[in-house]
């Protein structure tokens, strides 16, 4: 049998899920399929169980934050089919008021810590996750540091005003802080 190509996969996805696929775009050597978040599990499960495609390896998953977008928060998943050596990226975006995703641990056990990382750094909730708690940061931290509104520089320090070098913390007012 001929080796399936990425076009086959995308055509099949288009045929099977049709309107649930919001967009498909190509960036360098990778195709990204944009979907809404309630279809993540069904779509990845379908690709996992598929006889010829067998996308059974979850390469990575991570959170995204585009503060100016209409739907600012998102998850990115990358799956890999080791039999056909095809890779595919999925993205699902959501609004700030609805940060709940379905857990992917039912399909890939490896998603466990990846989702915990996304919870830790972006504050996403994963419905059905077996052990959703912070993983890299301390448990009593009260914010999610990879969101864009959290500056890397300590906003209470005025010796680090380095605007010329692009290191100006957000919400930083030098005049207010100067002694």
């Amino acid at each position, binding site marked *: 049998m001929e080796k399936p190509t990425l076009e086959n996969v995308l055509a099949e996805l288009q045929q099977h899920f049709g309107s649930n696929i919001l967009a498909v775009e190509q*960036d*360098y050597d*990778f195709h*990204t399929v944009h979907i809404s978040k309630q279809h993540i599990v069904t779509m990845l499960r379908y690709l996992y169980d598929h006889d010829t495609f067998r996308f*059974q*390896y*979850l*390469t*990575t998953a*991570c959170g*995204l*934050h585009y503060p100016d977008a209409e739907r600012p928060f998102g998850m*990115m998943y*990358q799956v890999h089919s*080791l039999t056909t*050596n095809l*890779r595919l*990226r999925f993205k699902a975006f959501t609004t700030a008021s609805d940060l709940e995703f379905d857990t992917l641990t039912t399909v*890939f*056990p*490896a998603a*466990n*810590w*990846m989702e915990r*990382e996304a919870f830790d*750094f972006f504050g996403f909730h994963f419905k059905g996750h077996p052990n959703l708690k*912070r*993983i*890299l*940061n*301390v448990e009593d931290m009260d914010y999610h*540091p*990879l969101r864009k509104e*959290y500056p*890397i520089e300590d906003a209470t320090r005025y010796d680090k005003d380095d605007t010329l*070098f*692009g*290191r100006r913390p957000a919400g930083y007012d030098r005049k207010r802080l100067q002694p």
Partner: protein
Amino acid sequence: MKTNFDTTTAPATEKEYSILNLGPTHPATHGIFQNVLKMDGEIIVDAEPTIGYIHRAFEKLAEHKPFYQITPITDRMNYCSSPINNMGWHMTVEKLIGAELPKRVEYMRVIVMELARISDHIICNSVIGVDTGAMTGFLYVFQWREFIYEIYEELCGARLTTNIGRIGGFERDFSETAWRKINHLLKELPAGLKEFENLLVRNRIFMDRTINCGPISAERALQYSFSGPNLRAAGVDYDVRVMNPYSSYHEFEFDIPVGTNGDTYDRFMVRQEEMWQSLSIIRQAIDKLNKLDDKTTFHADIPSFYLPPKEEVYNNMEALIYHFKIVMGETDVPKGEVYHCVEGGNGELGFYLISDGGRQPFRLHFRRPCYIYYQAYPEMIKGSFLSDAVLTMSSMNVIAGELDA
């Protein structure tokens, strides 16, 4: 070693489990790992790993640094094979800006990356020896790891956190001394490796200790997204160098060793064989370099990303402008998303870079193989002895820097 003793069906009322903290700073775990173990006598019933003790917010830091300043961050992930991380990062940015590299640079990179792989595997395998009680092997091969660090020193001036190479190539050509040392290594390391193998490979005590210790099936390993030697030890021949060749790896002849049981012994053997393969790759790379007409190029011709030589900066206006623009991060970068992965010491080391055209990445996510496969650790040590848990961890080569980012 898995025991036949079934801990799950024994009635809970008659048993009292004890809780044991393995770590955070335990001399038997090489790095800062905490595992809260639930013990039934000497048998592990359950384990809860806590990680993040050396979390340094690399992904956040990277959002605030120009591309060339991120290389030192990557050093500090898997610090046993920093050059691979550095090269992986350079290649990611090169993919983003669409830079074509000269063949000579690619072969030189292959040499450096394979040296790094050898030094990574030397550490892991000799430490497996130490954890089984054999200090000798460790002392024998560590001089070669030291020697590889001397080669790094000759190439870039640093030993552990190397920051080797630049976006577009190397900061300087390999020196005469560097070539001499690489050739010396190629000549002398095989004898050292052989000696190391003689000590351990067919050693009855070592085999009894490691065979069936912390096994994982190929199926489970894939479900947990294992990669690198740990996945190959379980019998899956996935290697990024072959599946998605980068830096001219497709031109090289090498074997991908695979194991069958996915236990400590198989992981040890896979790494051992990979070192031999790496030596062969380095030899091939030197041959290819000798056949090239080009004997001097050590970087691509991308003046807007590659720093010009200092004497030109002082005497030449154009070079001065480029220097200024690069250092200030004022060079335009295309918008886009790139994923690039390399075969690191521990497996698929990926860089997912989102660029919005600014001086820093908009978002940078590291696919760190350790982080992903370490979550299978509790499953792998359940039902085994405490001493096997230590051995399983060292044979998985969990590096705290890569785990915690």
